[in-house]
């Protein structure tokens, strides 16, 4: 199972993750990205991987549980 991890210390609120995979990421009023659902379904993996690669801060990673 894949787990989404956001390093909020690196997050600068670009919002690219929310644009790529809105079911999994949310940019909140504090300017930080939060994971909505931690484990992407197989059909959503492309969108989540897009979120990972598009983060200008490399603040998102995927971990195999």
């Amino acid at each position, binding site marked *: 199972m894949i787990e989404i991890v956001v390093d909020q210390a*690196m997050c*600068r609120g*670009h*919002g*690219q993750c929310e*644009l790529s995979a809105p079911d999994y990421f949310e940019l909140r009023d504090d300017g930080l990205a939060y994971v909505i659902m931690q484990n992407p379904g197989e059909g959503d993996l492309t969108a989540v991987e897009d979120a990972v*690669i*598009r983060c*200008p*801060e*490399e603040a998102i990673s995927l971990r195999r549980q």
Partner: protein
Amino acid sequence: MASSFFTEEEDRLLTQTGPGTTMGDFMRRYWFPALLSNRLPAANSDPVPITLLGEELVAFRSADGRVGLVDRYCPHRRASLALARTGECGIRCIYHGWLIDPDGRVLETPPEPANSRFAQTVQHRAYPTREAAGVVWTYMGPPEARPPFPNWLATTLPESHVLPLLYYQPCNWLQSFEGDFDAGHAPYLHWSKQDAEFALNLKWQDQKIFFDPRPLTAFAVAPWGVQSVMRFVLEYQTEAVYWVNAYVMPFFSMLPVLDGYLFRALVPSNDESHYAFTLFLSPARPLADDFYLTLGIRPEDFEVDPTTYYSPEWTGEGYRQDRELMRSGESWSGIAGGMNQDMAVTQSMGGVVDRTKENLAGEDFLVIQTRKYYLETLDKFRRGEVLPGLQEDMDHSAVDCRSVVTAVDTPLHEVLRRTDWRYRYVPGDSDVAEKPPATIWTPPLGSGQGVP
């Protein structure tokens, strides 16, 4: 807080291109443009001093028509060959008359006795050259690693189908190159009221690039470098134009233009300057006057000083900027001409931009990925692996570059995958649109300005 990317060491790795640097040695493994043929129209043309990849050279045309590109300093006592005599089968130093041919062989050493064989022991540094469609190309790498001369469209089309231009820019090559894969600057930097009004009545799809404030982008690695897909769409439309651009190692870019291409090579002169070879390629037909008209550009946009290759808009310290045009809403940048606008901003960053002070954002996706690709490629170079674009079966004429017009929700990677999708520009496509839009996006102008 600056971006977490790109340390000082990585910045140096990407930008330093002189002899002995990793990037410089990498670039030398490829054939690239050195100068325009029209600088050497005849065998007695003045020699042309030129610095490429940090190396001071001189170009000349020998009596047999070949172009020589050799070390600028005579192998005898190192006087400059920029002062040399031409019109013979080589270049003759004015100090003691040594004659050097395009291959770097010393043919004559006049002050020496007739029986001297000394000249045969001297090999002056010389780089091979090939001419194609108005451009002199060279290879500056190890002779044993020399690849075949590339079969770019730019090197195989007849001269009537190629418009070769050259600009000298007093800034590092990479900040200029990054402008070619920056998708989002066109609606700001290149916006003008005249172009906006022109586009309101235009059917030609490519104009969309100037009016989509947030184009979507995708990135892919190719055997020869990287590709980008950029999607441009106007708010009210259901179809978008997609540009599939190619960035071929080490510093070539190809962008689709009309039914041809804009082909660029950003050749470093030294770490704080480069030559921007900019070639318009028209495979289907000879370039004609309608070319400028259809693109909405002016021939004067391409004027440069014939020896320095500076744009006449370059004042020596910056580009001419008319702030009245900015205030009136006529031009967002206040700078005339698309090429000048690009050059103004990249040169304004300084000789070598300090990337450790950047704050990269979402729009910089392609810039970030391409820098990472370069760093990975330099690692491959250090390990002695086959380099992108230097594979034995490399076909430069087949590099994928095209524009596509299709539904706005088409996945970008699908556009990339479908190499059969290609927008067929037809001369006359600039006719009035069937349904001109009511409004068109404008960048922030302030009150009382812009297209009503």
